[in-house]
């Protein structure tokens, strides 16, 4: 259990802050779809190179970025709304990934719903290092990413490229998916990406406090989820983590609503 707790600690540290940018860039659903889209790349990398982290990460990143380009291109070329293009693209990539993995008789449950109990040392090192990489990049591009998320017109007038910032966030999320799949599975990525950041919103007074609080909510949700999953060995970690995160989200917004009503 200690390994599971440690892994969720590191995953919380990189996933929740990325979720903050997705929320304000109005890409919450896109983040979830992007996670699903990485499945194709992960499957191809797994079939060719096995369960090695580096090929899996590259496969996830390439697949996620490719899906983002295809959905944007399809939306423009075929003149269909972006939500239709996004749904078709991510469903296709997700289905392709599942199809390829099922051909090799891989246990899909673990990919779909997470498996924190059997995390291997290589993955543990990946999430440790990746947590630092994400914070380093966010620190380096802090202003550009926030401007792009909060006020794209101002960002443009101040000389920042919107597509470059979006590409950076998409790439970080796509690679992060590799670590998140182990914890919550590809179906429940929002438990780490979006729910903690959304739960922190009522209490944050600044951008920095929002990021810190989102990590705190992610940590609390995942620790509670792991404890819940430990009650019954057959339970997957993903649904337990997603449920406890959702409970914290409801408690956070509910308490804020009560306090606002009382004042």
């Amino acid at each position: 259990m200690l390994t599971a707790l440690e892994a969720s600690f590191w995953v919380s540290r990189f996933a929740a802050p990325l979720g903050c940018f997705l929320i304000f860039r109005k890409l919450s659903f896109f983040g979830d779809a992007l996670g699903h889209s990485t499945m194709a790349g992960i499957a191809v990398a797994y079939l060719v190179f096995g369960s090695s982290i580096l090929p899996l990460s590259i496969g996830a990143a390439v697949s996620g970025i490719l899906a983002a380009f295809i959905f944007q291109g399809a939306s423009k070329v075929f003149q269909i709304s972006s939500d239709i293009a996004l749904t078709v693209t991510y469903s296709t990539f997700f289905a392709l990934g599942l199809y390829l993995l099922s051909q090799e008789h891989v246990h899909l449950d673990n990919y779909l719903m997470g498996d924190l109990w059997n995390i291997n040392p290589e993955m543990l090192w990946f999430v440790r290092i990746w947590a630092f990489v994400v914070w380093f990049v966010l620190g380096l591009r802090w202003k550009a990413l926030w401007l792009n998320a909060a006020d794209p017109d101002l960002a443009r007038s101040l000389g920042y490229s919107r597509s470059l910032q979006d590409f950076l966030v998409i790439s970080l999320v796509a690679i992060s998916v590799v670590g998140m799949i182990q914890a919550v599975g590809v179906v429940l990525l929002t438990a780490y990406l979006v729910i903690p950041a959304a739960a922190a919103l009522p209490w944050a007074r600044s951008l920095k406090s929002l990021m810190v609080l989102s990590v705190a909510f992610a940590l609390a949700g995942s620790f509670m989820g792991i404890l819940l999953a430990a009650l019954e060995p057959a339970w997957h970690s993903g649904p337990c983590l997603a449920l406890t995160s959702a409970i914290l989200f409801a408690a956070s917004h509910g308490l804020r609503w009560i306090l606002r009503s009382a004042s």
Partner: protein
Amino acid sequence: MELLKASNLNFSREGRLILENLNFSIQSQEILGLAGPNGGGKSTLFELLMGWHEHKCELVGAGKAPEVTLLQQNVIKPRSIPLTVETFIEMGTWGVNRQSDPAMSLQDVLQALRLEAIRTKSIHEVSGGQWRLACIARVLVQSADLYLLDEPLNHLDLASEEYVGHLLKDLTAQKQKTFFVISHDWHAMEHFFDRVILLNRRILADGPVREVGQIYSNWRDPASHSWMHLS
């Protein structure tokens, strides 16, 4: 000194001519007004000056290309984002490649626009007028040669209008800044602006505010208040 000159500027969107054969220049250290009916292309002209659209004319700056920044007509409050008024204004200083001096420091602009009392308040707790002042402040802390302000006086009470007008005057005189301002407030323009351009797809008049205001009054149909016959 001429800061920027546009010659034979045309712009079409989806086959419709929005701006036709515009010729004008902007002198440095002036407050130039831009007036005209709704849909006459004023905001589009500002977007062209920002370089946001392709157009069939080179805008020539004197020497190096002037750095331009824009206050948009409606700055939408980013929903649920946790920002204090101070941080929101400070975001204007987060630009890249800005070498010249800003019009004002953060502290100066908070003082000048009477925003000190609400500097730590959330942007979601301030009134419409205070929000507009914060938006003006965020433009003034930016480093630029030319400040494009699209209806900055909207939502402001008379007192706020007065000190924003005086502030722009002071910045042109003391900091060598130049403002190009869209306004429908002829009273404020007469008090604070040096010159005004009347635009309705084409430039209908360009000159001192009082003279252009007279043209505006004569052209406006007293029965229907319509601008249709201006096009």
